[in-house]
């Protein structure tokens, strides 16, 4: 199969109109590589991105993306990539409540989006959150605050024409009681990409399977497009391979 960058199964399945992409993963099949691919794609097409990192520090993403042929440090210096290290995002340590901190964070994102819109290189703006489960933790478990913040980001996508990509660990919401955040995210998503281990068990050459559900909106003209995709993936050093089940040995 081809490298990522055009013509591969994932971009074909994703289409182009999705505004809100939710990536679901689990411990057995982490979906971080999808996020890396989407970040690379967002920057490669001349757009800008805001990356809200809770899972890893900047140096980690820098190393991973460099192997994939994308220099994050350079993009950051050129102000194409705006990196928020939120590992230390304080709940109550600094002044104000959690909600106030979220307001400030949103304020910064909104400013960036507006600046990007009015700037000369007005490309697509992408907001990436890695990941929503950790966002809930730094909000000291207050799902409502997280949802409010996500709603505002969601509202940005329709008002400012930008894209929102959120990673969430599906398996921690397995029980019925605290499923709220996951369900809300699924509701607002136009596109759900779900990484799961192979249903047939472990394999050397296949690392897992991706199912892509394109819920779409009425604004789209592509009426008869396929909505549900399912294929296998293999994560490599410099990208990932996607292929239909049974087409690889």
């Amino acid at each position, binding site marked *: 199969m081809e490298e990522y960058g055009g013509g591969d199964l994932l971009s074909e399945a994703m289409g182009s109109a999705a505004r809100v992409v939710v990536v679901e993963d689990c411990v057995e099949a982490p979906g971080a590589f999808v996020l890396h691919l989407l970040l690379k794609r967002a920057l490669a097409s001349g757009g800008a991105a805001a990356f809200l990192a809770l899972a890893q520090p900047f140096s980690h993403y820098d190393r991973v993306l460099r192997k994939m042929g994308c220099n994050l440090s350079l993009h950051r210096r050129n102000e194409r990539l705006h990196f928020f290290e939120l590992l230390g995002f304080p709940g109550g340590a600094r002044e104000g409540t959690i*909600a106030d901190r979220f*307001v400030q964070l*949103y*304020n910064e994102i*909104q400013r960036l989006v507006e600046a990007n819109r009015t700037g000369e290189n007005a490309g697509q703006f992408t907001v990436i959150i890695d990941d929503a489960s950790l966002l809930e933790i730094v909000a000291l478990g207050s799902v*409502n605050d997280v*949802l*409010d913040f996500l*709603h*505002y980001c969601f*509202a940005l996508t*329709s*008002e400012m024409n930008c894209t929102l990509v959120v990673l969430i660990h599906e398996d921690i919401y397995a029980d019925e009681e605290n499923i*709220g955040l996951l*369900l*809300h995210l*699924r*509701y607002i998503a136009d596109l759900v990409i779900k990484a*799961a281990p192979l*249903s047939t068990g472990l394999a050397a050459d296949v690392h897992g*399977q991706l*199912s892509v*559900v394109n*819920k*779409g*909106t*009425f*604004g*789209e*003209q592509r*009426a008869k497009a*396929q*909505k*549900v995709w*399912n294929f296998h993936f293999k994560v490599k050093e410099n990208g990932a391979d996607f292929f239909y089940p049974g087409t690889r040995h």
Partner: protein
Amino acid sequence: MAEAVVRCLRDGRLDGEHAPALAVEGSLQCCSLAAGAMLHIAAAFASQVAAGKAQARGLVVVAFDRSPQVYLEFMQRRGLDANALNRCVRILDCYSDPLGWKQKIQNQQHQGNSAKLSTNKENITVYRSVKDVTKLLSFTTELGGDFEGEGKKYFSVAVDSISSMLRHASVPSISGLLSNLRSHEQVSSIFWMIRSDLHEPKVPRAFECLSTMVACVEPALVDPVCGESPGNMSILEQNYSKVKFIVRLKRRNGRVKHLYEDLYIDGNDIKFDSAPSVSIEVNQSLVPKVQFNLELSEKERSDRANVVLPFEHQGNGEPIRIYDGRRSLPEAQRDPNLTAPALVDEMKAPKSGTAKGEIHYFRDSDDEQPDSDEDPDDDLDI
């Protein structure tokens, strides 16, 4: 059925009754179509209002889940022009700034110079404190009171959706809001949407109790094995393009009526298909396979139709009247044979040309009354 629902909403309230209310329910499996159904109902209702056919003069949309633009664009696609939209539709925008964050940011930037965020459309009002339900009620009724018209000015309310409201307020307060709206004297009808799987089962039930109509959007195919395993892609694919739209109508006398039709996306529009062809096929295959013949052939059918029944006037020039046992014929028109005081031994069918059979009828005694369902003692004053 969608038309029936819109008709109910259009006709509005009767004097001394609460406004009719519709709850649209959807789950995650078919949420985009449930949202589409809501848009369809809102647009169909708005065009009825614009045409002046509805009791209400206008529609107030309380929008939580979608940008007001989505509504306006959808209604425009349905043939409502800007003029009609400005006249008949008001949108209370709880989507773009539900908690007042943007205003807060702006106030900080302008150091208390409270420049009002102006919307470019005159029929959109931004609402910034969704936690305050009482204020929401007064905003809604205020918007509804603005519509032009003479006499008593009714308006209708659409809430999209209750699920988002429930994140900010409790179930009792939202139920209170809906009840207050229903009983408000100017509200003609009200409809709302709820995502049933976001809440405990009792929550959608609580709101169903407040409504007179419930429209459930359910997946057309249910996978018996499990929910979303990757194996059942065709089922998933089907459910994203076509669902069942089930309506329960509660009549005033307490009767509940079930209706159902198919709902699907056609291009960027929502279509309803009232002929559920699948169920006919199912019915046909449900007729048991038996060795003897249950159906009549064409000849047998025509023979059966030609049999002349004994209680009909048989071709003696009089119009055929069939006595159904409920009303008695006027005296003069009765068959003289039956009303004759004398004992009737035999009643002959008049012979009219073609050879036909005769029916012989002997009455046992005088006591026997002419055949009737009526109470023979009806005229007695006991």
